[in-house]
């Protein structure tokens, strides 16, 4: 009853090849023969013809051929297929026997050799008596043959040899033993192959010819046999298409057989064989869907053909084998290049095979549980006279029996009993079986893995785990189950998780693994398990026993023998002192105690106690007592405050209230509140709950710490929280007495923040600040503390983190008496104020640029206070910021004008001009101008002593003040230069007692030019009509050269004049030339003077128009007074 009984015979599984026997070769001693043989069998690749060769001695006895039956009339077949048949045709009966013989055409002893050869052929023929096997002769020759037709001797002798051996010409070959051996061999092979095909063709014809003798009633078995045989011969002939056709017919015929209990096994076996052949050919023809369809049909047809109920395990074993072999075929096809899909892959079939193997084991367990006194029947009914059965799938004790009823009921019973006992009694039966199942599963794991099908794999792993459990390899079982458990837990398939946990619990019980046992039972009792409450209650009782350091009751459905062993293990564990403390990380499980910890607030002030609630809820059926609850926080110094502990074992009767407190009632939520004062050093830090530990059991017995990382919660709680948040059941804040578990959220961390300061910080100032002003901000700090504030420190100034330019252009000082400059910082840190009674501080800030900036005022102090009766020193601080806008106080506009108040874009050397400044106040406050002072560049000189004209003036917003200075540029050596001068202004804002601020206004550049000739005119301030008007023009040569000047006076309608109208004169360097004219006005009013054109011959660039600017262009002419007109005279 070895598992191999169900294996398909190897001759069925191999690919049939035409069988050709080679005789007359001495491969051991003859090198030439050896080389020939090697050429035949080496390198048999796919491109060579499919033949299997065998070297046989010349006098080899081939299987005897039975005498052919002439009539089937009285013949009753004994079975479908003989066990030896396939092997016979694959390996024993050749399609062709080739006789190798060393003979050259020109051999001197030709006659003798020829007759020897003929004898050898005859011997072969005799041993093949009755078979259609062909015989061929190969002559091994040393010489290369001549082309056919040329060697007359050869052809002559060849035909002679053929006659002598009774061979046809096609069966005689020549093999020259020369260089091209392999080429000759391949040609020979092809010729052999043709002969073999003819042989198998005739065989097929022969088998077919039997058909007409058969009748449907008695020869049903033969129909199947013959179809199978033709199929097999077709395969040997390499005609796979026809082979498939024959096999299909055979398959149909098998199921037409009258099936009854006695021949069921035979029918199934044959059906399995034929099915295998069909599937194999289908895959070979690359029609996998046909193969799958055939296999499904096969399984559907055979599934119900259980046969004898007492031997049901045989059926499942057979089914398992069917699936496995199909899986193998499929897998092989994939290796060759077929692509599988997820729904159709070998893994499936392996899985089914495994499933049936498991079922077989179960059935074997049921059917083979005989009383121990039932002995193995003697004589052994399974013993067969020969080595093997005659026919496939028959019973050893009634071979060849084909009628419906068993020939001998007594024998039948004995046979069945023997089979059952074999199934059970082979010492390692279960073990072997299990390994077999695991083997199948392992082999199936691979394609499934390839198909990326995680849930499939999980199912497999569960199956494997269970197999290991049955095989009592609990460690391996647990390893597998643990792995799968996590995934099922994550996917929330509680029903599956529960079933795995059940197995795992059994494993851990049987191994005596205390920790695992506790872990699994914890989860089985918890809310994720789908067990009934009785089962939960049983497990919890066991768990409590374990916690009390007692031996738990065995799990149901365990092997009694193993239970015995386990009990001993547990007793050992119990007696063993020490190592009775376990910590179980329950975060990743769904334990039966739920825990949620929360800080009551996300932040606590340092002067308030930190409050923390831990909620516990048990889901187990019975109340549970724990002995300690402690919480670990990120700062371990607080841990001591967060412990609930049984006060003392001896006194516990006296304090029932505490007892009450330490008991978790199923379904009820228990709340534990903790309170502690945060340490002063932790201000600004986070306090986190790093873990919650719940101790079950006791120190004396066995104690188990359930450890939750962080603020509790387990594998299922996050999803539950999510569902609860969606739920309509969510109500408002639950009252303290009745907490809704789902609404409790975990708050695992809190911040300790500093105490709320009780000081007020007032800022007094008047925005906006003026640019450059010493802006005064008055800070008033008022303490409202009960005790004195110590170490008060003020930090004031520009708030850090603003634009870097602002830092450079803002200066802060405490000293308002002096101006601050770049050396002053932008922020004054930690100005000590000392122990403060309310006080004031003034601060001056100077903003050099305009724009808005933020000032920060930060007061810090320490003080003592008491929290919960504990004295602590608190640091408090208060910040105040203010945004300050800076504006420009005034704007200064400057312009240069000529003495005629004409705008100048350049000034001329030694020609006086005016500088005018307008100061426009932009300040929102009245602006007090103290004074101004003109600072001239050395290239410029004031004509008179310049004095400030804006001294002590107060400008309101929008008002402006003007100044005017008369200036002159002394001659400069270079032709042109530019001059700059400054006006420093002293001013202050009138509203505050601030120092006088000096602002320097830079005047714009102006170009200074020298002119070669200076012209000015002397003329009276007015003229009178028809009265002579003397005009003197002075021309001054300012160069070091003699100048030629051409002067013309253009006539004018308003004047007559006397003097030189056009003249050319020469002026010496530095000299002055006067020109005198008498103008005689003809009309009254403003009149244009006759235009004087001066052309400098040496300086053509100096235009007359430029010089004309120095001269008056118009004059007022009064009308002629009447003589004696007093009024006019008076005017």
């Amino acid at each position, binding site marked *: 009853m070895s598992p191999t009984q169900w294996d398909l015979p190897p001759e069925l599984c191999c690919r049939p090849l035409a069988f050709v026997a080679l005789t007359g070769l001495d491969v051991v001693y003859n090198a030439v023969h050896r080389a020939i043989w090697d050429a035949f069998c080496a390198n048999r690749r796919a491109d060579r013809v499919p033949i299997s060769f065998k070297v046989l001695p010349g006098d080899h006895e081939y299987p005897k051929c039975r005498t052919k039956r002439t009539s089937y009339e009285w013949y009753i077949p004994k079975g479908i297929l003989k066990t030896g048949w396939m092997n016979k045709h694959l390996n024993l009966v050749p399609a062709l026997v080739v006789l190798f013989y060393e003979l050259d055409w020109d051999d001197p002893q030709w006659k003798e050799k020829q007759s020897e050869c003929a004898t050898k052929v005859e011997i072969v023929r005799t041993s093949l008596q009755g078979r259609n096997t062909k015989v061929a002769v190969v002559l091994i020759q040393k010489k290369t043959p001549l082309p056919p037709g040329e060697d007359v001797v050869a052809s002559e002798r060849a035909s002679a040899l053929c006659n002598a051996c009774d061979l046809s010409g096609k069966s005689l070959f020549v093999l020259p033993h020369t260089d091209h051996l392999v080429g000759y061999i391949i040609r020979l092979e092809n010729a052999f192959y043709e002969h073999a095909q003819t042989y198998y063709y005739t065989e097929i014809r022969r088998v077919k010819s039997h058909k007409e003798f058969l009748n449907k009633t008695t020869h049903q078995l033969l129909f199947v046999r013959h179809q199978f045989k033709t199929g097999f011969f077709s395969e040997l002939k390499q005609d796979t298409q026809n082979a498939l056709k024959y096999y299909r017919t055979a398959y149909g015929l098998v199921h037409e057989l009258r099936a009854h209990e006695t021949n069921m096994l035979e029918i199934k076996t044959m059906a399995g064989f034929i099915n295998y052949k069909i599937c194999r050919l289908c895959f070979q023809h690359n029609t996998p869907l046909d193969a799958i369809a055939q296999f499904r049909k096969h399984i559907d047809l055979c599934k119900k053909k259980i046969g004898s109920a007492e031997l049901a395990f045989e059926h499942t074993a057979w089914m398992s084998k069917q699936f496995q072999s199909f899986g193998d075929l499929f897998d092989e096809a994939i290796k060759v290049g077929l692509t599988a899909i997820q*729904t*159709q892959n070998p893994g*499936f079939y392996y899985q089914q095979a495994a499933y049936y193997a498991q079922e077989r084991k179960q059935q074997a367990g049921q059917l083979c549980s005989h009383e121990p006194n039932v002995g193995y029947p003697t004589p052994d009914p399974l013993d067969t006279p020969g080595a093997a059965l005659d026919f496939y799938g028959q019973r050893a004790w009634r071979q060849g029996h084909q009628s419906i009823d068993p020939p001998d009921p007594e024998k039948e019973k004995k046979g069945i009993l023997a089979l059952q006992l074999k199934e059970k009694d082979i010492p390692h039966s279960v073990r072997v079986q299990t390994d077999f199942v695991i083997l199948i599963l392992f082999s199936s794991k691979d394609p499934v893995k390839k198909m990326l099908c995680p*849930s499939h794999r999980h199912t497999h792993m569960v199956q494997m785990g269970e197999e290991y459990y049955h095989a009592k390899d609990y460690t391996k079982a647990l390893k597998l189950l643990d792995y799968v458990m996590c995934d099922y837990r994550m996917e929330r398939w509680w029903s599956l998780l529960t079933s795995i946990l059940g197995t795992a619990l059994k494993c851990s019980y049987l191994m005596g693994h205390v920790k695992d046992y506790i872990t699994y039972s914890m989860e089985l009792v918890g809310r994720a398990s789908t067990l009934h409450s009785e089962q939960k209650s049983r497990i919890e009782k066991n768990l409590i026993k374990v916690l009390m350091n007692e031996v738990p009751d065995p799990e149901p459905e365990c092997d009694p023998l193993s239970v015995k062993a386990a009990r001993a293990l547990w007793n050992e564990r119990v007696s063993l002192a020490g190592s009775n403390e376990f910590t179980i990380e329950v975060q990743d499980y769904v334990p039966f105690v739920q825990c949620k910890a929360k800080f009551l607030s996300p932040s606590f002030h340092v002067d308030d106690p930190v409050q923390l609630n831990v909620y516990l809820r048990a889901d187990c059926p019975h109340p549970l007592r724990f002995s300690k609850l402690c919480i670990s926080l990120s700062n371990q110094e607080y841990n001591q405050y967060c412990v609930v502990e049984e006060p003392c074992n001896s006194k516990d009767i006296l304090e029932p209230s505490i007892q009450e407190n330490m008991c978790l009632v199923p379904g009820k939520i228990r709340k534990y509140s903790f309170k502690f004062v945060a340490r002063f050093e932790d201000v600004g830090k986070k306090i986190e709950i790093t873990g919650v530990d719940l101790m079950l059991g006791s120190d004396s017995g066995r104690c188990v710490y359930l450890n939750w990382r962080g603020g509790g919660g387990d594998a299922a709680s996050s999803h539950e929280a999510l569902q609860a948040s969606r739920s309509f059941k969510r109500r408002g804040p639950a009252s303290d007495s009745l907490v809704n578990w789902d609404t409790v959220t975990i708050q695992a961390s809190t911040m300790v923040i500093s105490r709320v300061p009780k000081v007020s910080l007032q800022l007094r100032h008047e925005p906006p600040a003026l640019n450059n002003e010493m802006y005064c901000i008055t800070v008033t700090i008022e303490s409202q503390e009960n005790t004195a504030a110590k170490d008060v420190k003020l930090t004031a100034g520009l708030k850090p983190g603003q634009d870097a330019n602002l830092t450079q252009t803002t200066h802060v000082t405490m000293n308002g008496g002096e101006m601050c400059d770049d050396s002053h910082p932008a922020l004054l840190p930690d100005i000590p104020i000392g122990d403060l009674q309310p006080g004031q501080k003034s601060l001056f800030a100077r903003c050099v640029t305009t724009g808005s900036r933020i000032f920060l005022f930060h007061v810090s102090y320490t003080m003592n206070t008491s929290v919960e009766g504990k004295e602590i020193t608190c640091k408090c601080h208060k910040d105040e910021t203010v945004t300050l806008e800076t504006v420009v106080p005034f704007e200064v506009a400057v312009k240069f004008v000529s003495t005629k108040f004409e705008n100048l874009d350049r000034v001329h050397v030694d020609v006086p001009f005016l500088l005018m400044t307008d100061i426009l106040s932009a300040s929102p406050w009245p602006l007090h101008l103290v004074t101004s002072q003109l600072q001239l560049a050395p290239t410029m000189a004031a004509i008179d002593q310049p004095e400030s004209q804006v001294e002590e003036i107060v400008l309101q917003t929008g008002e402006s003040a003007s100044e005017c200075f008369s200036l002159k540029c002394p001659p400069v050596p270079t032709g042109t230069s530019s001059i700059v001068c400054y006006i420093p202004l002293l001013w202050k804002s009138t509203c505050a007692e601030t120092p006088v601020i000096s602002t320097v206004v830079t005047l714009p550049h102006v170009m200074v030019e020298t002119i070669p000739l200076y012209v000015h005119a002397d003329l009276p301030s007015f003229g009178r009509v028809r009265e002579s008007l003397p005009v003197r023009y002075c021309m001054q040569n300012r160069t070091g050269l003699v100048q030629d000047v051409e002067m013309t006076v253009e006539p004018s309608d308003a004047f007559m004049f006397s003097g030189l109208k056009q003249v050319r004169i020469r002026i010496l360097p530095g000299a002055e030339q006067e020109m005198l004219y008498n103008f005689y006005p003809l009309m009254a009013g403003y009149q244009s003077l006759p235009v004087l054109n001066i052309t400098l011959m040496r300086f053509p660039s100096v235009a007359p128009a430029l010089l004309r600017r120095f001269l008056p262009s118009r004059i007022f002419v009064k009308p002629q007074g009447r003589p004696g007109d007093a009024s006019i005279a008076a005017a």
Partner: protein
Amino acid sequence: MAVCVAVIAKENYPLYIRSVPTQNELKFHYTVHTSLDVVEEKVSAVGKALADQRELYLGLLYPTEDYKVYGYVTNSKVKFVIVVDSSNTSLRDNEIRSMFRKLHNSFTDVMCNPFYNPGDAIQSRAFDSVVSGMMVQAC
């Protein structure tokens, strides 16, 4: 008709599983769980572009030896799985479709219940009776 009917949440945990009581319930759970991979594969194979006009009915997920497993995915990715005895050859594809449609309608009714919290196990009596109706026909 059906031997097992299951409703699986978007996150692949069961909302509802019922099977014929006579047989090993756990086995059906494994069968349904195993089918989820095929469902995922089929859904993702359709491609994102066609997601809108996707056919909800996924057809035969895979045949096991004894059962045929059919799948259906709603637009909200809730999966329905129906397991049918493979010996029941009279069952046509159309009938499976109509079963799924019925199941979907009933599921929609459940979802419309304001007191039902999506994601919780289905405990509706009406839904139960619809499922029973599908299973009863088998007997």
